[in-house]
């Protein structure tokens, strides 16, 4: 089976040769090709080459488009900074007030160079993989985009103390989100992976997530031309998962196994795909044996042995550059050792 068959089989709940796995290796491709990060995050060909190297080295069942959200902020005018060890970061947000939001001209996915980078990277990857391995487009959920444009503090402040202003900002951001996400589907992405920090119970209370964020997500997601996976961003998600279940286009949820995957399954219901596994940013701190052990525990001892709609991933942000390759291979090793050990009666 190839990656596309495993992902489709997981969605359908049909038997596979082994479970699918998706380490978050957007950054790691630069290590494999020795590409300086500033070039990697600005040249689609360099990015796609890095992901082809990831495919060759690790054989994941899905490859990710650029996981570099500061570039979305840059498209809106935020100043960014490049690093030699991590994806770019926002140095200075573009917008400081609601009035500036009102005057802001939205970036055009068809002409803005930062946005074209995302699209062209996905297009090159999809063309190179020819359907054997699907491409996932990483985008910030529309509820998180304002934080990239006005800073985390500015957006949090508006959500808490100016609800109508926050509503106005989301109404402005949503059409932009839909346009860029659909341009990535058109370029060949199979699924959109959408971190949702502002749905996390570690970030916001239940009320604003229910009253403000869910309606905005619903409005955006129902306009997508493809499926989406709502991602935990590295923060807790489970206590608010019920708010997100049933959103249009959302076929699955990525969250930390330490939150409790059995409970996540009960809340999500039988059909959505759950994505979980070892913590990606921490992968460099362990040895291969520990990574394999964590994967086996998740797959064999935490109730996943009966779950056909489960994919092993690294959670949180990118796997760091200095992670030994054998730690990533350990995920695959655990899967192959276990095989398709899923009860036939489920």
């Amino acid at each position: 089976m190839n990656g596309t068959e495993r992902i489709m089989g997981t969605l359908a709940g049909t038997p596979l040769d082994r479970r699918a796995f998706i380490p978050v290796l957007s950054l790691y491709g630069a290590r494999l090709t020795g590409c300086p990060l500033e070039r990697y995050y600005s040249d689609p060909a360099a990015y796609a080459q890095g992901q082809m190297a990831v495919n060759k080295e690790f054989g994941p069942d899905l490859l990710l488009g650029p996981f570099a959200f500061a570039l979305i902020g840059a498209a809106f005018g935020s100043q960014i900074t490049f690093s030699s060890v991590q994806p770019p970061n926002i140095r200075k947000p573009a917008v400081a007030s609601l009035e500036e939001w009102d005057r802001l001209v939205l970036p055009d996915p068809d002409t803005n160079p930062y946005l074209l980078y995302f699209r062209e990277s996905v297009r090159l990857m999809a063309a190179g993989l020819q359907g054997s391995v699907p491409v996932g487009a990483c985008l910030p959920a529309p509820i998180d985009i304002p934080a990239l444009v006005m800073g985390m503090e500015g957006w949090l402040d508006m959500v808490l103390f100016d609800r109508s202003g926050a509503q106005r900002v989301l109404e402005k951001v949503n059409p932009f989100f839909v346009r860029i996400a659909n341009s990535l589907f058109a370029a060949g992405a199979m699924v959109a992976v959408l971190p949702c920090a502002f749905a996390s119970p570690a970030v916001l209370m239940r009320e604003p997530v229910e009253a403000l964020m869910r309606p905005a997500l619903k409005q955006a997601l129902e306009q997508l031309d493809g499926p989406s996976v709502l991602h935990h961003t590295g923060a807790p998600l489970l206590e608010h998962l019920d708010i997100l279940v049933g959103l249009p286009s959302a076929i699955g949820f990525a969250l930390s196994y330490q939150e409790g995957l059995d409970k996540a399954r009960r809340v999500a219901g039988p059909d959505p795909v759950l994505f979980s596994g070892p913590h990606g940013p921490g992968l460099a701190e362990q040895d291969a044996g520990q990574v394999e052990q964590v994967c086996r525990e998740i797959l064999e001892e935490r109730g996943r042995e009966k779950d056909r709609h489960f994919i092993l991933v690294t959670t949180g942000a990118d796997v760091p550059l200095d992670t030994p390759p054998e730690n990533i291979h350990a995920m695959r090793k655990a899967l192959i050792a276990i095989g398709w050990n899923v009860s036939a009666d489920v």
Partner: protein
Amino acid sequence: MDIQQSLLEMIRQADRSGANALLDAWAGKHGHERLLAEVLEPTLLLIGEAWRSSESFTLAQAYVASKVAEDALLRIAEQRKADEVQTRRKGPVVIGNIQEDFHSLGRRMLGIFLSADGWMVHDLGNDVPAAEFVDKAVEVGARVIGASAMMLTTARNIRLLREEIDRRGLTGKIQLAVGGAVFLVCPGLDKEVGGDGTARTAIEAIGLFDRLWQESVGKEGGP
């Protein structure tokens, strides 16, 4: 319900204006000079406890707490003469996000909570090189530097600050507090980057700064 519990509940509800009105009413009756020690500081301790022990306490609620504390500090400052405003009972301390880290929210909240606890805080902002931290600490006589980082990659830059403190022969005299989201998910990272201590929350960091300040004094002697 006493004033501290009432304030805590309003912060839980993200009711900033209600919290401010409550504090104004209390200060009108008892005086602004008592607000810090009798209401704000004990309430921050309650919030710190709730934040540490309850998964239902959110970043947003901690942010509301920081804004309520900031609002109160501003009103206290307005009530005092300029020279009194400058008077702080603790510190000085230096804080900042380590080189290449631009996630300022936690650091800014820390600065507000430390100020509300009476510390003189020198906030150097984002992306602060190791030498700049130490230069400022030496200049103002700080015994504690607080370095913040959100990502594992940037947290590792704190090692450079550890090396700079040690290289200048200030080990022990200047204590290094480290914190940020990544320290919550990577146990032992504080030791790995050379920190003298860490705290799970910005409010809990108040106690950490107290402890590290005393350790510096104990190590060297002095005030």
